[in-house]
C-alpha cells in the first residue's frame, strides 16, 4: 500500500509540474524581453550611465532632478499631452462622422471602405515621408493647392514655424489614425438595434436625436476604448515625428517618446533617457489602467 501511495504521489508531482515546464520558454522570453529591460531601465535611471563613458555609478535622483528642472522637459510634456489630446478628439469626431457615412448604403461603399482602410496599413515611416513631400515649403503639393484655390497667397513653412509644425504633426496623426476609429465604430454600429431606431423614428425623433439617444449610448463604450487605445499608441510614436520635424523647430513638436530616443541615441546619455522613460511610463500606466478598467467593466 505504501508503495502504491509513493508511486501515486510521484506521478502527481510530475503531472503537476509538467504544465509549468511547458510554460518555461514563454516565461523565459517574458523575463528576457519584457521584465528584464523594464527593471534594467528603471535601475539605469538612477545611475550616470552614458555610452560615451561606460564607467558609471549610482546617482540616486539626480537624473530626475535634472530633467524636472529642465524647461525642455516640461515643454515636451505639454507638447505631448496637447498634441495627443487634440488629435484624439479630432480622430473621434472625424472617425465617427466617416463611419456613419460608410454605414449607409451607397454604390461603391465597399471600395470606399477599402480606400480608407488602406491608409491604416501603410508603414508609419512611409506615411511620414509622404507628408514630408506634401508639406515641403518650396515644392509641396499642399502649398500649391491652397494657393491655387485662393486660401493662401504665400507658401507657408509647414515644418519650420512652431504652430504650423504642431498642426502638421497633428494632421498626419489624425489622417493615419482615422481608419482605426472607422473600423471599430463601424463594427459597433452593426450592434445598434434597428428596432430601436425604427421605434425612435415612429416617435418622431430627428436624426440628431436618434444619434444622441440611441446610437451614441450603444457605441459609447467602443468610442472610449478607441480613444484610450489611440492615446496609448500616440504616446509611443517616434517615427512620424522624427521624420517630419525631428522634434523641432526649437523643440515645438518634441514628444516624450522622441525625447527618450534623442537623449539615448543622439546624446548617448542612456541614464537620462531612462529617467525620461520612467516618467513616460507613468503616463502610459495611467492610460493602461483606465483602459483595463474600461474593458473589465460590466
Amino acid at each position, binding site marked *: 500500500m505504501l508503495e502504491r501511495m509513493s508511486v501515486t504521489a510521484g506521478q502527481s508531482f*510530475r503531472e503537476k509540474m*509538467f504544465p509549468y*515546464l*511547458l510554460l*518555461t*520558454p514563454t516565461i*523565459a522570453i517574458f523575463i528576457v524581453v519584457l521584465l528584464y529591460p523594464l527593471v534594467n531601465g528603471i535601475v539605469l535611471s538612477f545611475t550616470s550611465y552614458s*555610452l*560615451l*563613458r*561606460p564607467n558609471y555609478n549610482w546617482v540616486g535622483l539626480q537624473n530626475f532632478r535634472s530633467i524636472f528642472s529642465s524647461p525642455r522637459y516640461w515643454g515636451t510634456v505639454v507638447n505631448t499631452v496637447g498634441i495627443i489630446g487634440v488629435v484624439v478628439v479630432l480622430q473621434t469626431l472625424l472617425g465617427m462622422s466617416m463611419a456613419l457615412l460608410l454605414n449607409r448604403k451607397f454604390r461603391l461603399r465597399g471600395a470606399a471602405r477599402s480606400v480608407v482602410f488602406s491608409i491604416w496599413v501603410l508603414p508609419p515611416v512611409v506615411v511620414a515621408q509622404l507628408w514630408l513631400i506634401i508639406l*515641403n*515649403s*518650396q*515644392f509641396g503639393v499642399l502649398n500649391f493647392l491652397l494657393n491655387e484655390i485662393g486660401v493662401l497667397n504665400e507658401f507657408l*513653412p509647414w*515644418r*519650420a*514655424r*512652431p504652430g504650423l509644425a504642431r498642426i502638421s504633426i497633428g494632421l498626419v496623426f489624425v489622417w493615419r489614425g482615422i481608419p482605426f476609429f472607422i473600423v471599430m465604430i463601424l463594427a459597433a454600429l452593426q450592434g445598434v438595434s434597428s428596432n430601436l431606431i425604427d421605434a425612435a423614428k415612429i416617435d418622431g425623433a430627428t436624426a440628431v436625436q436618434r444619434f444622441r439617444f440611441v446610437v451614441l449610448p450603444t457605441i459609447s463604450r467602443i468610442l472610449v476604448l478607441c480613444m484610450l487605445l489611440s492615446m496609448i499608441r500616440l504616446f509611443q510614436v517616434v517615427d512620424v515625428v522624427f521624420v517630419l*520635424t*525631428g*522634434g*523641432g*523647430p*526649437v*523643440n515645438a513638436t518634441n514628444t516624450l517618446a522622441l525625447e527618450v530616443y534623442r537623449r539615448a*541615441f*543622439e*546624446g*548617448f546619455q542612456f541614464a537620462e533617457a531612462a529617467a525620461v522613460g520612467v516618467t513616460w511610463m507613468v503616463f502610459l500606466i495611467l492610460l493602461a489602467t483606465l483602459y483595463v478598467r474600461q474593458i473589465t467593466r460590466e
Partner: protein
Amino acid sequence: MKKILFVFVVFCGATMLFAGGASEPETDGPITIRFQEWLSSSETSGNALRHMIARFEEENPGIRVELVSVPFDDTQQQSLLAASARNAPDVLQLNPTFASPLIDMGALVDLTEFFEQGQLDQIPAGALDSGLRSGQLFTLPWQLGPITVFGNVGLMERAGIGREIPDNVEDFKDAIRRISELDQGVYGFGLRSALSANTGFWFAPWIWMHGGELFDDDGSPAVDAAATVEALEWLREMQEDGLAPVAMESIAEGRALFTQGRIGFVFEGPWMRGLVRDISGLGEEADSLYVVGEMPASPDGIRRTIANDHVLAVSRDSRHPELAARLIEFLTANQEIANFYFETMASIPPFESILSDPLFADDDYVQVFVSSAEYSQALLSPHPRLSEALTALASSMQDVILGGDPRAVATDVSSEFERLLTD
C-alpha cells in the same frame, strides 16, 4: 510521449540560451574584412566604392571585403553601439565628429604603427590633427572636405557681382543682399536650419567670419558671446529680409534650389561638382553654372573654414588590424584609386604626392579646396558630447529665425556649451 515532450522542451530552452553566444568558427579560405561605410546609400557612390573594393581584392587575393552599409545619419549611433558591444567592423568610415567619442572610449587602433611618418607628413595638418590624441593617430583622412563658397554664376552676373566669390564678410553680405533683390523666390544664401549637430557645425564659419570663437586652443568651450550675437543677428536679418529661404530644412533641398538658380551662394564641399552634374542632368556642362571660392575673411583678415573630411579608422575589435590598415592604405594612397574616386565622385585625396598628379594639380576647382584644406578645421573640440553642443547651437539658430532675441539666445548657447562640455 510526455518524456519526449519533456526532453523537447528542455532542448528548446537550452538552444535559446546558448544560441546567442555562438560565434563563427575560423575557416580556411580568404580572410574577411568588414568595412562599415555610407557610400552604398547612393547608387553612384556605391558603384564607385564597389569598383575600388574589387580592385583591392584583385591585388590581395587572400582578403575579401564585406561592406556593411550604414546611412550617414546613423553612422555615429551605429558605430558607438557596435563599439560598446565589442563587435564593430574592422574598418570604419567616419567623420572627425563621429570618430571623436570612439577615440575617447578607446575603440580605435593607433595607426602610426601601420603608416610611416613620411607618408603622414604629406597630409594637411588640419586634416590629420582631428585624428591625433597624445601623439597617437586614430583616423586617417580619405577624402578632404574643406567647406568653401559656391556661387551661382547666372545670379552673380545679373546682380553685378562678377564671377569672383567676395573676399571678405562685408562684401559677401552685400552680394547676398543684391542677389536677393533680383526676383521674388530668389535668395542670396541657402542656409541649413534642420535641428541637427551638422547644422550647428556648419554655422561655425559664420561665427568665425564675425571674428568670434566657440572653443579655445584646448577644445574647451569659449563661446564669444559678442561675435555669436552678431552672427545670430545677421541670421535673423537674412530671414526677415528674405535673403535666405524661410525653411531650408534639408541639405538636398538647398542643393536643388542652388542648381535651379534660385539661391546665389551655398557653403559646400568638393562633392558638389558631382551633385550639381547629377541634379541638373547636364553632366559636365553643369560645371559652368557655378564658381567656387575660399571662405570670405573676417574683419581682421583671417580666413577660416570647417572641413567635412571623410576619415577611415581601424576598430580595436578587428582580428586582422594589419589587413584592415592595408585596405585603408589602398583606398587613400593608391594613385589609380584616388584618380578614379576623383573622376567619379570629385573626391580629393589627402596625400600631397597624389595631388601632384596633373589630374589634380591642373584643376582650378581642386586647387581651391587644397588651399582651403591648409587652414580648415575638421573637429571643433575633442569632447565626446560635442554633437549635443552643436545640436544646441542649431536649436539656437532656429530660435533666432523664429524671432528670438539673439543676445539672450547667445547667452543660453554659451551656458549650454559650458554645461555639456565641461567635465
